[in-house]
């Protein structure tokens, strides 16, 4: 637990030092969403129908931007070697690192989603499902994305490959996340897709740290 805490404080401290690293993806998210608003006809009701997909795809894309750097600095300065050899299990330290990644890139998206959804004229009835869905789904984005980043950490040009690896694995999250909002808008029960997202989240929290740790070790062989 000390090890996890040490990683968390280090990551947050680093984030305070280089704010652009996590502010830019947020800005990107806001701009993508607002561009859809600008591109549509003024007050087009169709926009509201697409709002859940736009917000979810925006979240996915802005998360993709941050993935390439997730482990790269630690790989290049030798920190990753030391983490592999440390007393604390690598799965735990990787889990802590991915949690920090979510705190910096996922959590702000959850907080920004509601005002942006209003900007896209999403009816208020859909807001709780949207925010809950993102709260359950963005950690999955961080964890699965982290796994893909770990697979490609030793590759010089991983940036182009990452979307191909990440997007298929995350398709169900997108489907159920946007589906929850659509169900809520139609007056249906949004609980089923949200429960499904929660199940995926717990599954990711348990399994992904191990898989990512194995992928990172592979980078040294």
């Amino acid at each position, binding site marked *: 637990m000390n090890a996890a805490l040490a990683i968390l404080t280090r990551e947050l401290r680093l984030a305070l030092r280089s704010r652009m690293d996590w502010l830019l993806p947020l800005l990107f998210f806001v701009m993508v969403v607002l561009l859809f608003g600008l591109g549509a006809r003024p007050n087009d009701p169709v926009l509201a129908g697409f709002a859940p997909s736009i917000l979810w795809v925006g979240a996915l894309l802005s998360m993709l931007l941050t993935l390439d750097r997730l482990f790269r600095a630690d790989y290049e300065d030798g920190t990753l070697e030391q983490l592999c050899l440390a007393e604390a299990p690598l799965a735990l330290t990787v889990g802590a690192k991915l949690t920090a990644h979510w705190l910096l890139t996922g959590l702000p998206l959850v907080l920004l989603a509601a005002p942006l959804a209003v900007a896209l004229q999403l009816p208020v009835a859909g807001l709780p499902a949207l925010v809950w869905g993102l709260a359950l789904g963005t950690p999955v984005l961080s964890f699965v994305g982290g*796994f893909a980043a770990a*697979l*490609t950490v*030793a*590759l010089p*040009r*991983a940036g182009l*490959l990452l979307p*191909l*690896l990440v*997007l*298929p*694995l995350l*398709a*169900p999250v997108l*489907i159920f996340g946007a589906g929850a909002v659509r169900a809520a808008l139609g007056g249906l029960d949004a609980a089923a897709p949200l429960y499904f997202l929660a199940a995926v989240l717990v599954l990711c929290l348990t*399994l992904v740290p191990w*898989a990512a740790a*194995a*992928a990172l070790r*592979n*980078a040294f*062989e």
Partner: protein
Amino acid sequence: MSSWTWFHRLASPPSFYRLADRLAPWLGWLALALLGYGWINGLFFAPEDYQQKDAYRIIYVHVPAAALSLSLYVGMAVAGFVALVWRMKLAESALIAIAPVGASFTALALVTGMLWGKPMWGAYWVWDARLTSELVLLFLYLGVIGLWQAFEDPRAAARACALLAVVGVINVPIVKYSVDWWNSLHQGSTILKMGKPSITAAMAYPLFASVIGSYLFAGYVVLRRLQNELLSREAGTAWVRELMGRSRV
């Protein structure tokens, strides 16, 4: 321990290469015979369907391709698991040999499914569980292939691909059971269904033949690819040099 020696012998590249060399022609010819029987009978002699008329005949391509897309993924993931746990070289090569074959059959299943869907359902594509997860399966195959291409060291590449394949295997039950779990537009399974048969014999035998024939064909292609893979990875070792020297004479 001694009962495992055959296993280790089999897993060694040279002896597996020779075994594959003997096995592959059999698979190839058998596949040709079964596919010939299945497709000719299915396309020309089987009766037409009570609902779909002649359009149903696409099942003789669609069903084998769809079944293979899943089976090959499972095969790839099993190879990946073996490669990760026991670090067996043969399994690493097998994983790489399977991936493009599986991707091709997945693409074939999707294309034939779309051609079938337009006249029957009234739409090439619907975003329902079965179709979407089959599409995701195609992307997973492409991810494995892309990852493999990106690495220079084949062993590191194989292990990275193995991890990805094993993680992605979670999609397989979703494809397989999506029709039962969700009310899907796609019909349920015909062959592997409990209870009374839901296809008449005159349609079923060509179908079975084309499914088994396609499996044998996939097996043939995978074996040949695996042989190539072994040759290129083991290039420079004594057995490859011996083999090449012999064939050149």
